[in-house]
């Protein structure tokens, strides 16, 4: 019984921390409409700063507290509000989400850069020198008592602020109708700033309180937040009292699991994954609605032409062949994942780009593909690759079933929780038997993966694998482009535009969602298997949530709607970072920040960079002189490189200069041709342009075309 009470006290004090952090999250979400994935990371940063001041520099605790809570946290909040969120305020939910995911990824990278993760940083609890006191049969430390007192104070303080003050009314009103707040003579921006400051301060308080009882580690602390998210979801992201209830449930459950869960090899991971499982369950159990009055601006998804896609696929393969022959052996290992991670990133295109389903567990799906390949394809059997794709697809379809009820931030949260469950628990399981089938995962360490056996030809050198991955990426890109052009692709876009409209048009939501999840997971599984082949030995940490975030970010920066963003993401994620490290080894840690920074830059170019790159290169592809010159030029340089006449750097330089020069030249030529056409009389050009027909006249003023279904659905969704 005493033990039960002791665990209860521990649970309640943890719950108090989750409540504080969770209420900060609810406060910012319900008043600004931004779900802050980086909320825990802000608390983590505060804990590190606090450690630096008190332990690192030996300053008195009160000074450090004042500095962190009253100076640094508000300053950070204002900076984030100004620089990161205001630019995307008017954009869609996805962009706002990406911003905070970028912040999460960037803050973890920054903390690791500033505070070497290999150094242990113990942080004393508050009043550690005072004796714990007794409360009936229970023993309570001062740290625990303070934690709980803080939570109570926060609960009362927030209640009073929100419902008894004008600032509180202003904050709630800003969610309802921003413009009307301005008309009433108040300042909506100020209401947002207050919300961000308070939210960040609450995260900081939570971070400082929790850090002494766990290890001070950037990603662990940031993800402890999963429990606080669960608490917030109990409150449906808007009710503070329910958030506190949720916090108590989560805190006590964790504590009792730690105390009473039997010791065996299958369960320690469950304890780590429990908050995520509970988050998943809470997401499904609590019905939720989107915040009302949020404007959604939906963007067009370009329809790729088959010829253009074919050309692109050739470029991908050629790029792979050139890289495979030009790079040295160690470089091949470094840059190997360009194509395999490109395939993983490509899986975002149908899922997030077409269907608008934001998933943060694609790399985990890749992990499933890698594991299946490693076990079944131990001798490179090609059918195992197919099985890897199918198993990942089935896993993806399975997440879609519960996730059917989720959309927007809830789906992102649910898939993040799923990723955590996979990497903390499932992937760490030892080999087990299920229905008589022996299932092996990462064998609690790493498993080896070999190259495939291609009809008798065994691919095992790095260069062969790179070309193989490039071919796979090219084929997958063609497949995704074909999907966009087909009926299913149009339906997915209708689904993204408006689920209600989609259902009204007679679509089966469940089926469509399950299919697109399965498809995307299958692609990711293929990417994972390819990635595994190149790594040769794969472990669970290579496929965890935090590792997957930068890939998602770079894919968003590339443009989720564009088929080319697979290649873009692989290249941009793997290329510059390693190139930078090669040129300036001291930048090793700083470069991890790049994807985060790139994500934050999204506010400037919400369509992504691939579409603009495509329009820049299109003239070259169409030009009858420039294209052959480019191909021949690069081929010539390549031959010279193979004959060792020039080295890799010269080859890269020549290829780049040639490509850029021809791009400029082709663009100039196209402009000249256009100008001539205009001069020759614009009548012809006008006749060529398709006539704009208002949506309601489609099928009446001109014949109905299959693509019109999508246009019509969008019209309905917008109206």
């Amino acid at each position: 019984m005493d033990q039960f009470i002791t665990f209860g006290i521990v649970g309640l004090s943890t719950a108090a921390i989750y409540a504080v952090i969770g209420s900060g999250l609810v406060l910012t979400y319900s008043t600004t409409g931004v779900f802050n994935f980086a909320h825990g990371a802000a608390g983590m940063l505060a804990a590190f700063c606090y450690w630096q001041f008190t332990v690192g520099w030996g300053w008195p605790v009160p000074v450090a507290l004042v500095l962190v809570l009253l100076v640094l946290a508000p300053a950070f909040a204002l900076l984030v509000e100004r620089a990161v969120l205001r630019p995307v305020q008017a954009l869609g939910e996805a962009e706002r989400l990406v911003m905070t995911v970028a912040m999460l990824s960037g803050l973890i990278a920054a903390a690791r850069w500033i505070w070497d993760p290999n150094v242990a940083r113990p942080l004393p609890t508050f009043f550690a020198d005072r004796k714990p006191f007794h409360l009936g049969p229970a023993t309570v430390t001062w740290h625990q008592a303070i934690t709980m007192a803080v939570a109570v104070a926060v609960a009362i303080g927030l209640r009073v602020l929100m419902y008894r003050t004008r600032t509180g009314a202003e904050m709630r009103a800003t969610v309802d109708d921003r413009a009307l707040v301005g008309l009433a003579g108040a300042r909506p921006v100020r209401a947002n700033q207050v919300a961000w400051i308070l939210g960040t301060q609450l995260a900081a308080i939570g971070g400082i309180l929790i850090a002494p009882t766990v290890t001070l580690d950037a990603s662990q602390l940031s993800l402890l937040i999963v429990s606080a998210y669960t608490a917030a979801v109990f409150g449906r992201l808007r009710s503070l009292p329910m958030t506190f209830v949720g916090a108590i449930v989560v805190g006590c459950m964790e504590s009792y699991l730690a105390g009473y869960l039997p010791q065996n090899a299958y369960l320690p991971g469950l304890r780590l994954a429990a908050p995520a499982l509970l988050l998943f369950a809470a997401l499904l159990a609590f019905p939720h609605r989107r915040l009302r009055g949020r404007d959604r601006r939906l963007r067009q998804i370009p329809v790729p032409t088959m010829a253009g896609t074919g050309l692109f696929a050739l470029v991908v393969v050629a790029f792979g062949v050139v890289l495979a022959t030009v790079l040295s052996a160690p470089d091949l290992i470094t840059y190997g994942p360009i194509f395999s991670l490109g395939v993983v990133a490509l899986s975002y295109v149908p899922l997030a780009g077409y269907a608008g389903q934001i998933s943060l567990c694609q790399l985990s799906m890749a992990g499933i593909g890698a594991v299946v390949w490693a076990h079944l394809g131990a001798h490179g059997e090609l059918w195992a690759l197919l099985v890897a794709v199918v198993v990942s697809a089935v896993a993806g379809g399975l997440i879609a079933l519960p996730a059917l009820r989720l959309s927007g931030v809830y789906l992102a949260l649910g898939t993040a929780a799923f990723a955590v469950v996979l990497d903390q628990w499932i992937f760490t399981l030892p080999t087990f038997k299920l229905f008589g089938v022996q299932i092996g995962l990462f064998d609690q360490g790493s498993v080896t993966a070999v190259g495939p056996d291609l009809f008798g030809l065994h691919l095992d050198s790095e260069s062969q694998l790179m070309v193989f991955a490039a071919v796979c990426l090219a084929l997958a890109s063609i497949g995704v482009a074909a999907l966009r052009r087909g009926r299913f692709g149009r339906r997915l876009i209708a689904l993204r535009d408006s689920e209600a409209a989609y259902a009204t048009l007679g679509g089966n939501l469940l089926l469509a969602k399950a299919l697109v999840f399965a498809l995307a997971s299958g692609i990711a599984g293929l990417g994972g298997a390819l990635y595994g082949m190149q790594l040769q030995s794969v472990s669970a940490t290579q496929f965890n949530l935090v590792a997957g975030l930068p890939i998602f970010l770079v894919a968003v920066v590339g443009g989720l709607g564009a088929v080319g963003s697979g290649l873009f993401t692989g290249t941009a994620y793997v290329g510059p970072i390693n190139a930078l490290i090669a040129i300036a080894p001291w930048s090793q840690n700083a470069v991890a920040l790049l994807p985060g920074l790139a994500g934050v830059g999204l506010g400037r170019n919400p369509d992504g960079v691939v579409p603009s790159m495509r329009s820049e290169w299109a003239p070259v592809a169409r030009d009858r002189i420039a294209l052959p010159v480019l191909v021949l030029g690069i081929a010539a340089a390549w031959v010279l490189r193979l004959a060792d006449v020039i080295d890799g750097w010269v080859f890269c330089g020549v290829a780049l200069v040639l490509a850029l020069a021809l791009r400029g030249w082709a663009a100039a030529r196209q402009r000249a041709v256009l100008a001539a056409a205009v001069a020759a009389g614009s009548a012809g050009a006008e006749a060529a342009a398709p006539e704009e027909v208002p949506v309601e006249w489609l099928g009446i003023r001109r014949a109905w075309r299959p693509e019109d279904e999508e246009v019509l659905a969008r019209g309905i969704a917008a109206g």
Partner: protein
Amino acid sequence: MSALLELRGIRAAHERINVLHGVDLAVAAGQVVALLGPNGAGKTTVLRVAAGVHPAASGRLLVGGRDVTGADPRRLARAGVCLIPEGRGVFPNLTVRDNLLMMTFTGRSRAEIEEIAFTRFPILAKRASQQAGTLSGGEQQMLALARGLATDPAVLLLDELSMGLAPLVVGRLYEQVAEIARQGVAVLVVEQFAAAVLGIADHAAVLVRGRVQRQGHPDSGLRAELSALYMGSPL
């Protein structure tokens, strides 16, 4: 009598499409001006420009004789311009009382505001702790109009007060508007439902495709022209 609200040669555009092509309007203290016109004529845009919500591409905006062109909505609100926007001008998730609290940013105290609102619209006192979004349409419009009454504005801009309401309710709301005007407020009313407002208007202007096509006393001549416009003379 000098005008409290004056628009001089206002031009405005929505995403590079010009919708106002030089609008001149003046509303004096105590005067009710009805701004009428077909759908899409730009009436809402005129009000939004006058409240500072929408930027004017050129032209000048004067409130109480002072040039306030380019001022933001908050500054104009504090200078006494009160826009009750199209739709329901209330915060749906706030209670009636909190909605009234949101009217205190222009100077009056909470007690004064509640006093005025509750005497003018006793029904609101009964619904004080109900969420505004759950009020009936007429009650919501009363709450929205309460801002025009209680914040003591110099200029009141009303957009489609009648939208979706029964004629009886509309009549009652416009009685309140007339009352506000009698206290010396300059009132500019946009209305589709011309009959509702012409009864209380001292002056009417007809806006067609971003230009004031006619203005004058709301006599029968103007009414005939209006009905021709609505019934489909070529626009």
